[in-house]
């Protein structure tokens, strides 16, 4: 058992921090106010990811044959923590690196690998994830967007919703129902769909988490070449399940929450309210939640290092991170009162993001169901 980082890992974290201090512009806080979907941050992400690529950091967790350096999941975690801790300057590109690339490595044809992996590892392509539909949210396999074979294309019709960053994306990893007679998990295929095909319309849905974040994407007779399909036809669910294994840990929300908490404590001191029992209790509680979430996440990484299959511990880690983030956001409002409500202020931004934490990548309630059934063996509702 070892709960401490190695000297090498500590040095790596410092190096990443130094790099960020040098690379992020002075007005980064201001620049990132509009959120990762904003014009400013999306543009910045291309420039920034190219720099990460130069250093060999962007896709370091990838195998050497695809331009990575087989970095350990721990090193990848440190990197992810520092990125998310600094407001995710990679913008949407974390998805490419974390799971879209690995899915292409596993299921892609040689042509697909050649076409997609270098742009990802060089940091010059933006992807979006076309999974959710109006009628298929938590129950993703209720998806209906249809892909009908016609000659050498799939004719795609339907719509996706809540698609983050769709307006900037060059490609979409798109889930479609390729077998019209199928139900649930069977008959689904994955398409690596270029976003500039005729018949695709992207509409923004204004949301609390900043500009140009959420979108609805409509597909009307979109002709997607057959060779854009990733993996076997009708068996796309396995591709998704594989890809999402890499997403086990997700964004390092716990790390950001912990950093914000440190800041909150400093601000509470500056305001002279640090000694108030309610503030101290709130800070203590939030800190315990942040540390718990961090360790539960590390447990998941540890399992990956040891090659164990994904388990309900992943769900537990996510729930814990959501709780930690929520506690920190609530505390910000509690400590700052009215000042926390200023739009774009530090506390306000936290609060808005925390609002989404219990819904994005699987609602907390659904995660709890999985903990109950997988970890405790309870019957399903």
């Amino acid at each position, binding site marked *: 058992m070892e709960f401490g980082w190695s000297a090498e890992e500590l040095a790596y974290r410092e190096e990443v921090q130094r790099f960020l201090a040098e690379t992020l512009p002075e007005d980064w806080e201001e620049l990132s106010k509009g959120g990762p979907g904003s014009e400013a941050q999306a543009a910045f992400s291309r420039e920034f990811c190219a720099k990460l690529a130069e250093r060999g950091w962007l896709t370091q967790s990838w195998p050497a044959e695809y331009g990575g350096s087989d970095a350990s999941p721990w090193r990848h975690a440190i990197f992810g923590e520092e990125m998310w801790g600094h407001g995710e300057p990679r913008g949407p590109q974390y998805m490419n690196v974390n799971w879209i690339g690995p899915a292409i490595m596993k299921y892609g044809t040689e042509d697909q690998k050649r076409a997609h992996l270098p742009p990802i590892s060089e940091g010059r392509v933006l992807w979006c994830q076309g999974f*959710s539909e109006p009628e298929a949210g938590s129950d993703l396999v209720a998806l209906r967007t249809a892909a009908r074979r016609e000659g050498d294309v799939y004719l795609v019709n339907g719509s996706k919703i809540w698609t983050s960053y769709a307006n900037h994306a060059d490609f979409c990893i798109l889930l479609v129902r390729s077998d019209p007679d199928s139900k649930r998990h069977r008959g689904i295929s994955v398409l690596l769909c270029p976003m500039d095909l005729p018949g695709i319309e992207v509409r923004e849905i*204004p*949301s609390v988490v900043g500009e140009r974040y*959420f979108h609805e994407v409509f597909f009307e007779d979109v002709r997607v070449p057959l060779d854009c399909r990733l993996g076997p036809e009708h068996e796309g669910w396995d591709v998704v399940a594989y890809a999402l294994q890499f997403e086990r840990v997700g964004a390092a929300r716990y790390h950001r929450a912990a950093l914000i908490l440190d800041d909150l404590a400093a601000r509470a001191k500056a305001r002279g309210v640090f000694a108030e029992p309610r503030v101290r209790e709130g800070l203590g509680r939030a800190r315990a939640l942040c540390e718990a979430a961090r360790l539960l996440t590390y447990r998941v990484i540890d399992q990956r290092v040891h090659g164990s299959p994904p388990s309900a511990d992943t769900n537990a880690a996510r729930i814990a991170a959501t709780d930690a983030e929520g506690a920190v956001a609530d505390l910000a*409002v509690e400590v700052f009162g*009215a000042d926390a*409500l*200023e739009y774009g202020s530090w506390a306000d931004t936290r609060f808005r993001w925390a*609002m989404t934490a219990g819904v994005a990548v699987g609602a907390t309630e659904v995660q709890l169901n999985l903990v109950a059934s997988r970890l405790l063996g309870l019957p399903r509702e």
Partner: protein
Amino acid sequence: MSLDLDFDDAQQAVAEAVASFCAERCPDEQIRKGEAFSRDLWRELAELGVLAIGTPEGEGGALEQAAAFESLGRAVFPGPLAATVFAVRLLDGPEQARLAAGEALISVGEPPLLPFAPLADRFVESDGESAWLARAEGEVLPVSTLGGEPWGRVRLVRERELGDARDALAVHDTMLAAWIAAAGERIVADAAEHARARKQFGKAIGEFQAVAHPLADAAMALASARTLARRAAWTIDRAGLRAARRPGAVARHAATRAARAAAHIAHQTFGALGITLEGPAFHVSRRILQAAAQPPGETRAAEVALEGYALEGCAA
């Protein structure tokens, strides 16, 4: 006579009149766009007499006012509502009359960040214990807020001491509690409606106890907070403002917490839809969050609630 926890006919009539005023003049579409507040709307609200209660010209008592504030809360009616009833109780003469008539708009809080500052004609600086009439010096810097209310940064110059603010705060807290508990009940009702209609996994999501139980919890906490607000209003009418300080604080504390929790639960129920700006939840939840942190006195409510505890105990 034994206990009777319902509004009487007159109070009920106020609630209904205000509710239909809101439906007509401040419909949901406008609230969703964040374009509901205007000086005209504010004057029209004042014409219903809602803000004048407690002034020489005012009709009705705190229970009528609470009935009105419940209807306003359910409609998430905009404007410095609790701030105005607070200032109305602190001021007198023409200044009071202008506020009660909706002719002047008040901003209450602690500088520099003040609610409705860019629109305000008068300022009251208060931490909930003392209060001063004040004027803005120099420019008011507009600040947009989570709740969509126009706030601003101001330098205030105190003009006149208004004395002990705690009696006025009792009214403020009571009405804020009535408003926010009703807003909370509104968002829970909307979420319940969504939970009945929205189907996933072949059933209404409301069939999942993970959805149903938190909504039920929220409904209970809000019902009790609303009842506490009514009791505080009753205390104002029966025993006066001083006696209502603690019941007011208790109601506020319970209502703000219950409403914030309700907003959170409603958002869980709505899923991603709740996070959209013009969707079914945010126009209510943002106002709940803002009202819950409203100055003056937010952070003191719990302590005021304990005042006199050593002497009387909770059973008193």
